[in-house]
């Protein structure tokens, strides 16, 4: 049962990655991240035992609310407020992006096979974590828009969360809550920064932010 759930959720997370990297609209990217946040917030179910059932349920609930609802809602509101151009201007074409996603997924699989042969890792989750990290970094670098950089950061942060589940231990609850709080405050501050950028530069393209050099 647990193995089945794990495999389906992992597969679904990989699909959200592909969706985020291949969509041409910011709203679709945000929805992909929302789906991803929802999916990985239910992964702590796999770690439940009698001792930590309450902690895990709290973590799951807070995770779903913050990653699946609050953050995506807030991002959607931001792009609506600043009337951002809804199409993402990619620095690198979409077909290349999909090839990149597939290649890095295969690469992650081999990396995990190589280092994850001991008992410490649950290989499926480590594989998903590394593949997701590649996607997050790619979106930060290749999409020339500050909102998509936030999305890339969220995906990178998600990959850290999956990695922490792959070692099959969770940090004490207050630390996990701290991580989620940081994420929430982080997105809050980044969107405030986006508003500032828009009001000063009248654009949210990264190219307008290249005046400070050397």
């Amino acid at each position: 049962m647990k193995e089945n759930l794990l495999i389906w959720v992992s597969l679904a997370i990989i699909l959200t990655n592909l969706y985020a990297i291949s969509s041409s609209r910011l709203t679709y990217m945000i929805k992909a991240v929302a789906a991803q946040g929802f999916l990985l917030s239910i992964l702590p179910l796999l770690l439940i035992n009698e001792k930590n059932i309450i902690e895990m349920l709290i973590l799951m609930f807070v995770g779903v609310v913050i990653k699946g609802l609050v953050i995506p809602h807030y991002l959607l509101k931001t792009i609506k407020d600043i009337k951002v151009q809804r199409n993402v201007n990619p620095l690198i074409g979409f077909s290349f992006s999909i090839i990149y996603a597939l290649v890095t997924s295969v690469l992650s699989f081999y990396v995990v096979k190589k280092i994850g042969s001991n008992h410490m890792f649950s290989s499926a989750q480590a594989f998903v974590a590394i593949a997701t990290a590649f996607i997050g970094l790619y979106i930060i670098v290749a999409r020339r828009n500050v909102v998509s950089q936030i999305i890339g950061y969220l995906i990178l942060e998600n990959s850290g969360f999956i990695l922490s589940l792959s070692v099959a231990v969770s940090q004490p609850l207050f630390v996990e809550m701290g991580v989620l709080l940081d994420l929430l405050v982080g997105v809050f501050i980044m969107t405030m920064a986006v508003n500032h950028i828009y009001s000063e530069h009248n654009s949210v393209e990264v190219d307008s932010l290249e005046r400070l050099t050397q």
Partner: protein
Amino acid sequence: MTIISILLFSILISFGLGILFAARKYNQKQLLKIPVFIASAVFILFLPIELKVLQTGPIAIISNNLLFDALAIYHILLVNIIFLVTSIYSVGYFRKHAEKHGEYNVSFVRRYTILWQLFHLLLLVVLMSNNIGLMWVALEATTLISAFLIIQPSNPLSIEAMWKYLIVCSVGIAFGFMGTILTVAASDNNITEPIFLFTQLVEHADLINPKLMLLAFIFIVVGFGTKSGLSPMHTWLPDAHSQAPTPVSAVFSGVMLNCAFFGIMRYMPITELAMGNEGHARSILLALGIISVIFAVIFIPMQHDVKRLLAYCSVEHIGIIAIGLGLGGIGTFAALLHIVNHSFSKVLAFFSAGYISEEYGTRDMRKIKAAIQHMPMWGTTFFIAMLILIGVAPFAIFFSEFLIMKEAFFSGRYIIIIFFMIATIAIFISILKLVLDVSFGINSKTKIQKEKVGHIIKSIIIAMFFVLLLLGLWIPSPFSDFLKSATDIVQNGAKL
């Protein structure tokens, strides 16, 4: 233990009060005095804890999640001093700014005061934490809180600098998160429970999986190194330092970089112990330190903005600290000494550079001439602080750099000595050339006017110069014992 908890609780209360008062309707002058009171209260409240640790050794509280040992209190003392001094400086600096450009919006100053105190609190949490997760959370929170300190006042350039800082550091710290997780994974074997505490990691270091721990350490160095300004992850640093208001640049350079580096210092002994003390972790730091110094050598001569120059100078000094740690032995001792020397002299340099650039209305060093003639006090401070920073004897930075070279000599790494000599001489020449033009030169247009400098800030500057001179000539034995116990923690790990 209860006394320590009460003290910590009252420190928390003082920060809370400070933030509450800052939210009330005061004017700019009153608002800026709040951080001075709070920083002094925090400085005084920490003293008993520091004395207790010096007398009886490490103290851990809240089921060992917070740890006070020699290394931690060394940094805590530094953070408290720098925040106190910079808070006092802020009052005068904002007044100077108001004279030249008109007063800031009060809501700006209010936000500045609140964020300033939160920033101070979070840096202290980073230094106190014994839990690797807590340290990560606090370090990420410092990035988020301090981002908005950069855009006071907000203009297109400062917003660009803030965005770079926010994204580069957040992505860096996300790598740090993976390093944290991998550390837990490395410690997880069938013998012990998963470990989250530094002290326990040191205790069970022989059971940690060495390869996975090395991987974790690489992630940690990349992540925390981004925040501490190690090249090639330093890209945010010159922008943020040049655009932020001067007091913020001073605390960024003076303490924030050290606090991020403190994290690396906590992980280094664990990695070394797990890998059987073969020096792998130290070599990584040595390599990054050398790269940082090379970047500084290349970029320093190109600078015209005085605060950018100081920022690249920070990259150089963080690199030197990393080289010291990488060499080990006396090098570690020298690196810890260098942290204090660099913080003090860099803070003084930023203070004076801030005043000079406000007075001249530009940060461009080609347009600033005859600063000593024009502003005797701040011009002289700038000149001497820069001389200290480039390693003029008999000041303290010369001494700590000399100790690092001595260690390289005794461990037979002559290439590093040659590199270090060439690099420091190159930086010496290029900075001296820039600074001489700024400090002396002829400027007939500006007339000499009487400079108003407060007595408190004057005595603080003289006291800091005195400390820098003293540490260059002779280290008092209680201080050197204290430094030696901190060195022992960096080399052999934190123990209870």
